[in-house]
């Protein structure tokens, strides 16, 4: 293993985070605080409790998931798209690095960054609402797995994207709607029965549900299914990344 190589990618990617700290860390915190203020006050005024949890607290796991998934995808996709765009990818491809090492470096850095953002949002949430975390270990595990799998997913998008528009397309058109409709701000049980069935086709439901279970012990689907779903998604992304590097798709001519 080229450990120094992995560490170098990781370090330089993290350095980019600190270099763009406003964009990287401060802005997600601000936008999340806005969600709290707007949703917490506007909707929380009408729905005081969801299954015995105050509405303000109820939306916290969903908000963290929203940021963690969005940030993971945008960090990882940009991290690998930029070298392609400015041409510095030649160096990565000509270095004695295996694709596993390249992925560990980039995805590791993107996941670290979104994990940090997720934890900062969690800390911010404590300022707004009283929170309990029933299963801290599973909370962290779900968060970490989400950051990892969505960073992998973002890495794939970054390789797939041919221009900046394509880079933004999936996060904006697919992920945001799925998270919003995936029970970030409501419980599936609040939906009419027909829509409850439709909601179960949204993969985000499993993510948000498992993560919320780690906080409050209540879930739309069982935490075991949530865990299986996210592990399955991670495995799928790994498979695609493996195929990309094996064939050199959109990386090597």
């Amino acid at each position, binding site marked *: 293993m080229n450990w120094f190589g992995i560490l170098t990618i990781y370090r330089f990617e993290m350095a980019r985070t600190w270099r763009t700290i406003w964009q990287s860390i401060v802005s997600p915190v601000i936008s999340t605080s806005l969600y709290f203020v707007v949703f917490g006050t506007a909707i929380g005024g009408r729905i005081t409790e969801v299954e015995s949890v105050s509405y303000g607290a109820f939306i916290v796991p969903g908000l963290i998931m929203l940021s963690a998934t969005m940030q993971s995808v945008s960090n990882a996709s940009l991290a690998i798209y930029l070298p392609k765009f400015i041409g510095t990818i030649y160096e990565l491809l*000509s*270095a004695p690095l295996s694709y596993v090492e390249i992925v560990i470096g980039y995805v590791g850095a993107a996941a670290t960054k979104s994990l940090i953002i997720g934890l900062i949002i969690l800390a911010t949430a404590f300022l707004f609402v009283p929170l309990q975390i029933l299963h801290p270990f599973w909370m962290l595990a779900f968060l970490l797995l989400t950051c990892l799998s969505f960073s992998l997913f973002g890495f794939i998008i970054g390789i797939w994207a041919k221009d900046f528009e394509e880079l933004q397309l999936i996060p904006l058109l697919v992920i945001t709607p799925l998270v919003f409709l995936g029970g970030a701000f409501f419980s599936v049980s609040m939906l009419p029965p027909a829509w409850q069935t439709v909601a179960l086709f949204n993969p985000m439901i499993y993510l948000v549900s498992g993560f919320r279970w780690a906080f409050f012990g209540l879930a739309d689907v069982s935490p075991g299914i949530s865990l299986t779903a996210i592990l399955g998604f991670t495995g799928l992304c790994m498979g695609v990344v493996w195929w990309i590097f094996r064939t050199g798709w959109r990386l090597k001519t």
Partner: protein
Amino acid sequence: MPPMLDLRDVRKTYPNGTDALKGVSLRIEQGEILALLGPNGAGKTTLISIICGISTMTAGSVEVGGHDVATDFRAARQLIGIVPQELSLDPFARVGNCLRLSRGLFGLPRGDSTIEGILKKLSLWDKRDNRVHELSGGMKRRVLIGKALAHEPKVLFLDEPTAGVDVELRKDMWRTVRDLKEQGTTIILTTHYIDEAEAIADRVGVISNGEILLVEETEALMHRMGRKEMIIELQEPVDEIPESLSAYGLRRGRNNRSLVYSYVSMAGKRPGITSLLTDISAAGFVLRDVQTRQSSLEDIFVDLLRDAA
């Protein structure tokens, strides 16, 4: 000792059916400077990209220092440094960090003194904390060279190193290349500038249309294919070349004010310049000036490509 670079029947066919390389075989010994000459689209960059792992080959094999680039890619790539044609650099990175990144990717520890040495040699030491976008094009080119040297490669690929570079920097670059050769580095450069190949290369390879037309020592090539011309400028225009000079095969030059005498240089044939000049003055011509001109690698190159076409 195996050759530093051993290419065997390397082929590259793009998905659209274009044959970029049609079976290139090439051996390059350690410490050699080889210049790859060829028109745009000849396959020079494709060939380099395949050796360095940036492109995949359709068939054939490449060994670097005895290591196969496909099966033993780590050992092979460790030996290679590449300076790409485009100025591909992170515009916001600082110069020193650019080199550190390159070194790190090749799995080497920091090595501040090595990087300092490289930066100083490339006259970049004062710019080490500057961001790349603050540098001129020539300076960026140096940063790329610095990055390629940061892991102390044994083989250096320079893809059009002096494209769009001013004269002074070109001379600088040539000096750097010669220094590296003295340290035992093998250098392969592609170029459009034939005088560049003539000035620094030990051997010249001519590539066209995905095929290597020839690989020959620069001097031997010049010797074999070089021509010399003597241009004799006259005071008065000449209407017709007199009978007494017919044996020399002269032709009239510009405005009929000169006579041009072509002869093969250095080929052991007597050019007979003395008798030519005697005969010219005997024919009553008054000389204004005499110049000789040796055909450059450029002329040879053009001839070769014309023959190949």
